[in-house]
């Protein structure tokens, strides 16, 4: 990663945003399919098209929205403790974003608030991974993070719209492997980011933690737990690494 002197804000340019938009396009197909899956479920839960689009715009989190609509079966909305239970689930599912934001601090920390917070508001799995990889390769422009996040709204809304309004038209996205998009990119980028033996312990800890967590909870929890496990191992290994 390039040196970032303290107290100097990173650039936030249109060119950086454009690079982010371009880099994120391969992920757009997967986001579109996920959006369509949500739209379909929203339709089954008797949400109107406006409601489905509103939820995609405001919540903007696939796993959280799937849980939310599954609590709204047949047009009845959860109230009281049922609503709170959904809220707590969403908090757990999205807790990985807390980690993502923390990891972005050293890059975006000196940005003015009117640039930093909109950038964080459009944060997603794919664009965070892309951004961290770009940063490791020397990207310094915070516009990259914003552009790659904002760009994903287009397929997210598009997918929601298609799923909610024309559910039956989508044949079987899983049949052509589109559900595998984020997994495939994560696998490829993890290979690309692998730097040698010092990463092995991090990977082993992350994999084992993900396996255990996946058995106990669903969705985003395995991702969060794996990320934390990797961070803990890197923290513990730090002295050895420094001695190199």
């Amino acid at each position, binding site marked *: *990663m390039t040196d970032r002197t303290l107290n100097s804000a990173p650039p936030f340019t249109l060119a950086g945003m454009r690079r982010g938009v371009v880099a994120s396009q*391969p992920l757009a197909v997967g986001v579109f399919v996920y959006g369509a899956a949500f739209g379909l479920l929203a339709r089954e839960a008797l949400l*109107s098209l406006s*409601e489905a689009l509103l*939820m995609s715009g*405001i*919540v*903007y989190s696939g796993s*959280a*929205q799937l849980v*939310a609509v599954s609590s709204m079966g047949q047009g009845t*909305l959860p109230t009281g403790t049922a*609503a709170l239970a959904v*809220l707590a689930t*969403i908090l757990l599912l999205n807790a990985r*974003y*807390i*980690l*993502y*934001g*923390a*990891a972005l*601090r*050293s890059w*975006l920390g000196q940005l003015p608030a009117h640039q930093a*917070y909109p950038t*964080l*508001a459009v944060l997603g799995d794919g664009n*965070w*991974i892309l951004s*961290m990889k770009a940063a490791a390769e020397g990207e310094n422009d915070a516009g990259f993070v914003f552009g790659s996040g904002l760009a994903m709204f287009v397929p997210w809304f598009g997918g929601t719209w298609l799923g909610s309004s024309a559910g039956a038209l989508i044949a079987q996205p899983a*049949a*052509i*492997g*589109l559900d*595998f*998009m984020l*997994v*495939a*990119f*994560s*696998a*490829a980028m*993890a*290979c*690309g*980011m692998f730097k040698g033996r010092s990463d092995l312990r991090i990977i082993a800890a*992350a*994999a084992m*933690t*993900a*396996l255990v967590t*996946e058995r106990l909870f669903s969705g985003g929890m395995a991702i969060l737990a*794996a*990320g934390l496990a*990797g*961070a803990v191992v*890197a*923290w513990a290994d*730090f002295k050895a690494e420094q001695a190199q």
Partner: protein
Amino acid sequence: MIIRPEFLLLVLAFGLTSLACRIGGFWVMSFVTITPRLEAALKATPIAVMVGIVTPAAARGNPVELFALAVIGVIMRLMKNDLIAAVAGIAVIAIGRKLQLAS
């Protein structure tokens, strides 16, 4: 434009929860001095998160998906291009699932 008022309230609550997660970690870190050690820990999170995304999919043990992951690994070794590797992996899934359906 049919939006039920109580639906709007729910969605706002869900949205605020998501937003709190998105900005919370970043905000909290403004009170923390990022030492080199902490920086190293945070820098380890991307690869760990990717492993966290891939491992559950691999652990389901579906041969098509395992083969796709192997193809991705080989292409990354040979070409070091993650776009080509990922697209090849998805192609393997598409073809493999088609063959599975046919058999």
